[in-house]
């Protein structure tokens, strides 16, 4: 039971990471550095509860806010860079964050434990959740609530003017600018909000695992975080969530196959892309789903020229 609770918790945390990449992607940008914001959120939220004695919620908010602010700071120079260049530039940012945490020491001795970011040792003993007697299931509830809240925001975004503006910028920046959309503001906003979402995921992660180190936010996490939205599809926010659910539950759930697990995992990514090159929930599927939910009235025969 605990095992499945842990898997579900990781699914939720990684879904946030996937949504973060998705949010940048639907503004027509490509980030390979969201794990950096994840790390910022994790370290700051961890410091909040473990070093400064703050409750969980303010710590999470603090981590998300700082990640979001840094997202905005990164968003401005990112405006100049496009496509794969942007992906690698943001990967550079993610690595800088990782290496800063590899070198930062800011510890306190609490009881007989050294707590705080401790260079290569990582940030250990973030025991808020355990000390307060939360069970794994209860903390999963918190994670699920956060993911659900973020998902609702994405749902509202999809139907809002801002969502339409994002998609317009993704489709054609020049055209978007000519109809009066402030492209700069939209893109930077997307970066900031995406940073906050990833930071939230990081904050949840460090409280879930009680521990984080620089190795956990390196290239493999970057690869995982772009895999969720691309495999899940960029047609709707359901895509990255579905991607995270599928891939994380596969990696963990296939433990019965333990020897062959990663072969199946890699093979499935390849096969999925061969069959559905735009991801599982692609634009065409979203359109069809919308028609199915709200069918358009059939045109009357007489009107057809």
């Amino acid at each position, binding site marked *: 039971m605990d095992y499945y609770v842990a898997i579900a918790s990781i699914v939720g945390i990684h879904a946030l990471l996937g949504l973060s990449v998705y949010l940048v992607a639907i503004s027509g940008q490509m980030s390979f550095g969201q794990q950096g914001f994840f790390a910022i959120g994790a370290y700051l939220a961890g410091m909040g509860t473990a070093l400064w004695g703050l409750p969980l919620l303010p710590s999470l908010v603090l981590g998300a806010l700082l990640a979001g602010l840094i997202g905005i700071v990164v968003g401005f*120079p990112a405006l*100049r*860079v*496009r*496509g*794969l*260049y*942007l992906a*690698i*530039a943001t*990967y*550079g*940012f993610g*690595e*800088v964050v990782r*290496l*800063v945490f*590899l*070198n930062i020491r800011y510890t306190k001795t609490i009881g007989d434990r050294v707590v705080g970011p401790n260079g290569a040792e990582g940030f250990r003993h973030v025991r808020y959740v355990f000390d307060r007697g939360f069970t794994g299931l209860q903390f999963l509830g918190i994670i699920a609530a956060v993911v659900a809240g973020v998902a609702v925001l994405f749902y509202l975004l999809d139907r809002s003017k801002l969502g339409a503006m994002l998609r317009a910028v993704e489709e054609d920046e020049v055209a978007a600018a000519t109809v009066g959309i402030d492209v700069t503001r939209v893109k930077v906003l997307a970066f900031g909000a995406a940073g906050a979402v990833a930071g939230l995921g990081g904050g949840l992660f460090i409280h879930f695992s009680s521990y984080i180190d620089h190795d956990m936010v*390196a*290239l*493999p996490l970057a*690869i995982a975080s*772009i*895999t969720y939205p*691309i*495999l899940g599809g960029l047609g709707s926010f359901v895509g990255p969530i579905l991607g995270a659910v599928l891939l994380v539950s596969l990696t963990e759930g296939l433990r019965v196959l333990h*020897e062959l697990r*990663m*072969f199946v*995992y*890699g*093979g*499935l*990514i*390849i096969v*999925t*892309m*061969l069959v559905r*090159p*735009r*991801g599982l929930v692609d634009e065409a599927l979203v359109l069809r789903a919308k028609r199915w939910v709200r069918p358009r009235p059939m045109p009357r025969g007489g009107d057809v020229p």
Partner: protein
Amino acid sequence: MPRILLDATEQLLNGLMYGSLYALIGGGFTILFGVMRKLNLAYGSTIMAGAYVSLIPFYLFGVPAWVMLLSSIAGAVAVGFLVELVCFRFLRKGHELAPLLTTIGMLIVIDEAIVHATGAVGLEYARPFGEESLAWGPFLVRPDYLAILVAALVCFSLIFFLIHRTRLGRAMRAVAERPQAAQILGVSLRRINVLTFALTSALAGVIGFFAVVSVGAARPEMAVWLTGKGLVVTVLGGLGSLRGAILGGLLLGVLEFETMWFLGTSYRDILAFLLLFAILVVRPAGLAGARAT
């Protein structure tokens, strides 16, 4: 010469020698991207696959280094064909992100195969160039670094000859420039793609041999390191520009050695990545990039 200048020059030499390994990695990514307009994220794993294949005759028969180099090339080419077949051949056209993911899938599969075959421990590799540093004037030169520089010179000479002086190279350049037009003129896209894969994979075999020689042991996690360096160099130089990749590789090498010497290992990578970010912001299409995508 004052001490500090002497040190700086020595690190400059080291950086240029080791940077030529980065240039080779970036070159492999770049040639493939230039011709096919696709990024092969499984390239780092192809490099490691070659190095691991060359361990088989080494452990079984204790073969000399040149046989290991050849078997590394053969192994990498075999894996490269597999990557082309699985990740690119049957992929539908016009979806930019799909090849990224198929090659990520392949990266996972190859790495896992290596981990399974070796038990994830580092395996001692041959040291064909000895341990003794060579004295060159006031400078000490590591022989394996020197070998990397020589290998890079040979490889890039061959590659530039191939691209600019042969029919195949002309066909490759035509496909890179205008795939449809090249096809109309009778160039087979499939053939060029496969041959480009063969070329870059053979290069991967050379890189695998020299990269592992310079580290001294083969470890599965080197694939991530190679992929990271390759991506940085490719983009730093400007996607699809071979000259840019060489420039980017040498620059990264020099920068890493100078910062490592003067500031210590912990600052080396921070500075390198900060510089990457800064360069891309100032020159959004890379160092040699006129052709922005």
